[in-house]
């Protein structure tokens, strides 16, 4: 299998440009990352066996390793890359949930549960879209909290990885996560 997800060099540079404040670079980056993630996800799903489930961050990690030129990569790149992937995941999920909502029936059944325990009685798609919409609102008053939720919930990042991606201390991430979660919980139930 060959790499089709864009040249590592190009992706690394795009990441650097984005870090430097070039928002257009993100626009170029997203489709490349998406393409690679789709390809890897398909490969994973194929190889997956009933008794093994996919590790949460393995996919993005592998995409990162494949797409970023490792020799010149700075450590921040990894966190940056995870940030891009989390945005992408959010978009994919929201698009999918919207399409499903429009379609009402049919389509592939994916259940996105917001917590391990049962008890959130809403429909998964409705839940997901509600989280997304509440986050958009949150972004207006507290963009950092929104990013924390995006990385944690949509990107599957740990507190430490989130701190790395945002360039803040992990105590900060923990505090922001705690409040954002409480706020969202209040909003959504």
């Amino acid at each position: 299998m060959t790499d089709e997800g864009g040249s590592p060099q190009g992706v690394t540079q795009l990441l650097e440009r984005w870090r430097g404040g070039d928002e257009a670079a993100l626009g170029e980056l997203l489709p490349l990352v998406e393409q690679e993630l789709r390809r890897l996800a398909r490969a994973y799903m194929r190889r997956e066996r009933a008794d093994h489930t996919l590790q949460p961050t393995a996919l993005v990690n592998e995409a990162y390793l494949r797409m970023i030129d490792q020799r010149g990569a700075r450590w921040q790149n990894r966190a940056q890359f995870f940030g891009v992937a989390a945005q992408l995941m959010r978009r994919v999920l929201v698009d999918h949930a919207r399409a499903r909502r429009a379609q009402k029936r049919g389509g592939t059944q994916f259940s996105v549960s917001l917590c391990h325990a049962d008890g959130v009685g809403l429909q998964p798609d409705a839940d997901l879209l509600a989280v997304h919409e509440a986050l958009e609102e949150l972004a207006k008053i507290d963009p950092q909290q929104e990013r924390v939720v995006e990385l944690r919930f949509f990107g599957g990042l740990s507190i430490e990885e989130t701190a790395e991606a945002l360039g803040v201390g992990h105590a900060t991430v923990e505090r922001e996560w705690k409040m954002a979660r409480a706020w969202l919980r209040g909003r959504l139930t």
Partner: protein
Amino acid sequence: MDVGRWQKTKSLFHDALEREGAARAAFLDAACAGDAGLRREVEALIAAHEESGEFLDAPAYEAATAILADERVPALTEGRRLGHYRIVGVVGEGGMGKVYRALDERLGREVALKLLADSFVRDADRLRRFKQEARAASSLNHPNILTIHEIGEEGERNYIATELIEGETLRRRIARGRLPVGEALDLSIQVASALAAAHGAGVVHRDIKPENVMVRADGYVKVVDFGLAKLTERGAGARAAAREAGGWSLVSTSPGVVMGTVAYMSPEQARGADVDERTDVWSLGALLYEMIAGCAPFHGGSANDVLTSILSTEPAAPLARYAPGVPERLEEIVSKTLAKEREERYQSAKDLLVDLKRLRQKLEVRAEIERSAPPEPAEVSAAVHARPAALTDETVARTTDGGASDAATRPAPAVVAARGGKRALLVATSLAVALAVVGFGLYKLRGTGGSKPPAAAWKITPLTSFAGGKADPALSPDGQQIAFAWTGVGNDTLDIYVKLIGEGTPLRLTTNPARDMSPAWSPDGRHVAFIRYAPEGNSLMTVPSLGGSERKLVSLTSTGAFYLSAAWSPDGKEMAITDSDLPSGPTSIFLISLETGERRRLTTSLPQSGGDLVPRFSPDGRWVAFTRSRSTAVDDIYVVPAAGGEPRAVTTDGREISASGLDWTADGREIIFSSRRGGLFGLWRVSVAGGTPEPMPGIGENTFAPTISRRGDHLAYLYRKLDYNIWRAPGPNAANRDAPPTRHVASTRGEGSPRYSPDGQRIAFASDRSGNLEIWTCDAEGGSPAQLTRFDNGQTGSPRWSPDGQRIAFDARPTDNSDVYVVGADGGAVRRLTSEKAADIMPVWSTDGQWLYFGSDRGGDWQIWKMPAGGGEPVQVTKGGGFGTLSATDEFLYYSRRNALPTNKSSATGAWRLPLAGGEEERVFDQGTTGTMFITPGGVCFFDPAFPTAPTIKFYNFASRQVTTLVTLDPAKSGAALGSRLAVSPDGLWVLYSQMDQNDYEIMLVENFR
């Protein structure tokens, strides 16, 4: 909330969380002094925090991965089609993707359908080799090798259709616990037998593992996916692949991914060396080991560890470590299959098979001896004894096994007798476990609960496979030949052909440029009568069935273009024909004496109906069955005494019945016909005495024109594969008309009746992609489809947007009555607006959205009526006749008048308009028929069939009276019905029309019908 207040809330939230109970309350009292709102917010946040538990802890990530992975090969939902397969459900998740249960509509059997991921099939060469191997293995017809029916593709999807196995994978069997030695031996023997056969044909499996061994509930083993490993294997070998992946830390970051496959890999595979049949021997050894030990022989914490363990010289731990009391001989056999050096292994699966069988025999003898002695706690004997009991349990749990369907299709010869025994057994005692020696081994046969479909003995095969349109199959009285109308491969006009059942090319009986259809055999089989549709008039003709000169029997009055037919009476003295009194009137049934030429009326059709069609004599010649139309798509079957008399209804529910043909069963007790009663047209049977029609099992949808041999053992019918899609082409206002049309709204089933929303942003259309014709919408580019109605029965169509784009009116026939309905453009409740026992069709909105105009026969004849859009009493609008509404402007209502039959050319073509302020009705356009016109502000867009050679979509300009051609259609693809409905976008830049992209016919033969 403003940012300042948010920050304040945030800091109070965190500070308060650091305090507990009274201290927290005191802190908040002080901090929020005088600001009750702030305090409420902080307290609400704290409360939410305390009950948030695991909220949001499960990332949405896995679902996202599934979506990412799934997008390119979207899951198939129930009712979807792939080739001639209809998805019925999901069987399970295989290594290569989802496996579906599907109905092969052509052959009427259930199959397992596996989609191949696109990355597997990108390499054409590799795909070709895979197909070769898979076919080679399947063609061995070995009872333990899964039979492949077809490796096909449809659009971007590549799929494998195989026999359907009711059972579980060996993986799941092992997951339930270690297997007793006897059962493990039995399963291994079957796998070894499959491998020995495959190796004999030069096919190495390469990927023997528990996932690839299916165990049927009756103990039968089926080895699946022969050749598939060819698709997935990388040139450099698995070890290299693992290394390559490991370079990207694939193995270390996600141990599960490669693990599944490496555990059964032979050392040579792990090294990336060439593999041969001894590799399969190794993998089977690993399988046998795991069945008994409960774990694979070589394991480790990661794929790399496993590979290292396989490649080391260290042998696997003895089985006795996991299963004390395992026979010494079994240890020897397993260790020989798992010899690291190929030369030291069993050199063939056959050798292994011999040893396994010997061992089993020995154990059985021992068990037999022990059975007559007092029980001992010996593991082996317990294992052997335990097996039938375990099977009996499974039998109880799975009494609805559908094994009968694969038994009916392609059993290996050796198994047929045993299966016949199984059925006999089933009658005697449904839970019995019988033993029978079949071929090479012992099989446990069991009852299936007695739900064998009557179609199980039927053998359904295509009689024709050549291209071109076919119609009207008619089996000869002796059942040995079939006459039919065919265009020939060159898509000429239809002529009459005769073909022997089985081999042989069709014999062409007619060559006239006119269309020849509806062949009917004389009782002695020497002549074939048929209808000739010629420009100078239709006629009933006859020709010798071996070829020869044709003769006109009688000229017909009817100018009907398709559905006329004739039938010979069993005594050969007269013929029943369809004809009308006036050229365009509905047809009735007449009898023609072949001796005197005398014509006698047998029925009088209902006025303004589709007529009486398809006369067929009962086998004893005393009755004539026919279809009687009440109105569009509302038909019933009747019988009338051939001597004359009052017709009697056989069906009374008024469902749509195909005029393609019907026939009597040989005993004269039932009538087989094609009808649409939920879903698409399919074959149904009804007792002549009356009663509820029942679907013919296993025949499938899109089937027409049943014909039965006199002996009753053969049934033939027409199977039609049809795919209509909505296409888009430049419209009357487009600057550049040269842009080629593009397929715009598509599925593997039908799309038609498009309508743009008033703002041009959305398209409403009718589609049967859900299994029944329903109303759907999509965006202007054909994306994001949404289903608005779910009648699940009857035709639904004619969607029309309200002027504000909020609602869609349409007509539907969920029961035997056509009514006008309204639904929100975004979905929601469907509301029926008319309830009269009359046909109410094709609604259109007034420009203020207050009224709906529609066509109705409620007054006794067809007129346009109107009613308040919210529902209410309709009032008649037209006086001089009206059928379908076309459009309403502020000044005029445009509409069409009725055609007696959709295919009849009559003076009713064209468009009329009525001044809404009062005034005379006037004809504004004289071409086009009801469903094929679209009124724009400047003119009429219409379908010009120019049958049969040059169909076009044209535009007639009201002002200039000029006609311009918008689209030139492929004559092979422009059908009637759905196919000609069209719509112009509000800006006039586009025209949408429905085109028949696929329309293949096969004549299918059912043997052993009776």
